[in-house]
Structure formats: C-alpha cells, structure tokens
C-alpha cells in the first residue's frame, strides 16, 4: 500500500490533467482569439502543477 500522500497526489494529478484537457479542448474550439489568449493564465499554472508542484 503506497503512502496516503502519494494516493491523494495521484488523484490530484489526474484531476489536474482532466482540467487541463477541458481547458485545452475549449481553447481549440473557441472562436475569439483574445479568449484563447486568456487560456495561457490557466494552462501555465496547471501545467506546472501537473509536473512539479507535488
């Protein structure tokens, strides 16, 4: 049984990846270039969270 911390962080990582998937797919569907650009502010912290901040 892995430590509880790793289990919870695994869930967090899955959740982060899912939110990123939603944000990126909405960015690709968006028809307003400024709204697309605003996605940078969401994707950057979530991307860092996905890989480093644990």
């Amino acid at each position, binding site marked *: 049984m892995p430590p509880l911390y790793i289990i919870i962080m695994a869930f967090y990582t899955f959740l982060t990846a899912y939110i990123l998937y939603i944000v990126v797919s909405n960015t690709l569907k968006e028809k307003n*270039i400024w709204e*697309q650009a605003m*996605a*940078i502010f969401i994707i950057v912290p979530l991307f860092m969270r996905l890989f480093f901040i644990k």
Partner: protein
Amino acid sequence: MTVNYRLSGWLVVAASVLISVPLSFSYVSMWKDDTIIPGLGVTQVKWLSDYVPELKGTLGDTRVFILEGKEPGANILVLSGHHSDEPGGWMSGMVLIEHARVEVGKLVVIPQANNSGFTHNYPQEAHAQSITIPLPNGQKRVYRHGSRTGNSAEHWPDPEVFIQYPSGQKLSGDEVRNLNRSYPGRIDGTFTERTAYGIQMVVRKENINLQMDLHEAQPEYPFVNAASAHPRAQDIVTLASLGMQAHGLDMGVEVSPDSFRGLSNRELGDVVPKLMAVTMETANAEQGKIRGITDARLPVEGKDAFYVAAAKLGNLFVPWDENGWPLKRRVGRHLTAFLELATALEETEGKPFRIEGVPFYNEVVKNDVGYYLNPLPEGGTKDTGFRALPGIWRLMTQE
C-alpha cells in the same frame, strides 16, 4: 481575413508550455541549497541530521556551523531563518559564519533553521524568489528568499486547526508549518516538530548557554526593534538593551508570555535547564501590510513611500524616513544585539566569550553587508544538485 482558430488555439497551448518550462526550472531551483562560504573561524560544519538522524534526506535537514575558540567559555547558539522571508535575521547568521572568529567560547550558527521554508516562497505576496547582495569586488551573492512557513509539499495537508504540542494551544492550520510555533518539538511529531526537535538536540548536545533567534517584523507591529526573552534571560536582555543605547539604538524588551506557546525562546528555555533564550525582531517593510511596490529590492533597500506616509501619521512603532530600513541597518542591529548579549552573559553569569570580526551597527551601515561576505571562488561554485526533494518526489526517490 479568415482566422484559423484551431491553429491559433494550438499556438496558445504551445506558448503556455514554453512559458511553463523556464518557470518550472525557476521553481525547482529553490530546492537547491544556497552557497555559503564558511570563513576561517568555522571549525566544523555539521547537519541537523547529525543530531537527529531521522531528518537525513529531508528538507528539514540543514547546516549547523560551529566556530570553536581556543579556550572554553560560553556556548552561544544563533538561530536564524526560522522564517525564510526575514533576511535581516538570516543574513546576520551568514555574516557570522563567513566573517567571525571565536577566541574564547563556542558559537554555533544555524542560518537556515527552517530549510524547508527556503524551498518555496509567497508569489501572492509578490515576494521575490531570491535577493542579491553586491560584494566590494563587483561579484554578487544570491540567496533564496523563502516563505514564513515550511514547504506545504512536506506537510500536506494542513489541518483546519493546528494544535500546538504539548500545550494544546490552538492556532490557524497553516501554522503547523511554522517552525517558531513548533517548539519544543518531538521525534515522532509533524515534519516541522521533528525539525524543532533537531534544534532542541543541538541546544542540549552542544551545551548551549545562550540562544538567540533572529527575526523581522512589520513596522506597524508593536513588537519590533525589540527582544523577547525567556524569564530566566530577563537580566541579560535588559543589560543588552542598555548596551544598545551606547550605539544609539533603542531595543524594546519584554518577557516571553507564558500563554504564547511554541516559540523558540519560550519552549527551549522551559525544557533546557539554565538556557538563556532570546528572540529579536527588526523592522522590514516587506513584512508589512501597507507596503507599496514589492520586489527583490525592497527587502535589501528597505525603502517604501507608504511607510514614510504612515510614519508621518504616527502609525508605526519604529522611526521611519525616506532612507527606510535597509538590510545593512537591520543586520547591524542584530549583530550589535548579539555582541551586547554575549557581553551581558559574561557580566551576569561569568562565562567569557571573545569573538573577532563581528561588526557593530555603524560599521555595517558604513560598509554594507556584502563587505562581510566572502567572494565566490574563481570559476564560480560547483552545482551541488538536489540534496533533498519535497513531497511526492522524496517519497518516490528515497531508499
């Protein structure tokens, strides 16, 4: 003009990833130890894990510098970096390590007591990740500028309420990562309590007579430019305060209240027989809540227009003008108080302590802090890599 929104969307995603890469490297760089170049006075460099082996391989492990004199005398411990965003405290510790030589007695310095706090900072407070100190030879020394509490990745999750051990005093949940609320510590406690226990073991095993804990506080806070002492240390801190007057420095004095638990001076003074324990605070605009522009210069230069205005309205507990409270003044205060406390210890307890190379307030103000730091070796310093990792990375890599 027809815009290909799918292409622009992918460009946004690619730009986000490109921005994330340097930011991630910047974030991870805080996990590496700062460069400290011990001066000739340092006779031994140990680690907290030499006193409590359970800390080895964790971010709680930190360096312990010992400066031993030729003759026995008073044993003094200087703690700094309990709060890693208070550079006036930990830079004073760095100056002692890099510039002091003990002739009689023993000086133990733990400059980054809460090493875990140095591995992350408070971006939402606009705090810089590092501060830069210029040296007289043109070089620059860079130090991490961390946060008040330890890295949440080592301590996750914070409880709703932090119940301090052993008092049972209730504090806000994030204070569970505050080293200066976790004393006396315990070996099987939280991450921060284990670090506090390590420092208690340093006090016990090195037979410390006088312990000083160096901090900074907001200028609008009543307890600033002041010292708080364990009841046993009332006499020496009062004597030191009188000694400070000779340098034109006011230092308020109070006895650490019995009802405010977890502090280094209160708890270690209670559990270690005969220990004189003192905590000191200088004024740092960066700590304050009414500050203006917050950047890497503020903690070093200490100038803030909002504090000038607040001083004119009489809302501060320290004198403040356009020159502010730069790092050199705060370090000068701490070092002068250190010397005066050592003198007071000898006068009251008869334990001699002789030290060279520690400047008084006027000297630090004249020469600036970089004058008392050692130059970097030619060719730069070697990258020591990651000694310890936080959170999930440690759990996945430790043996």
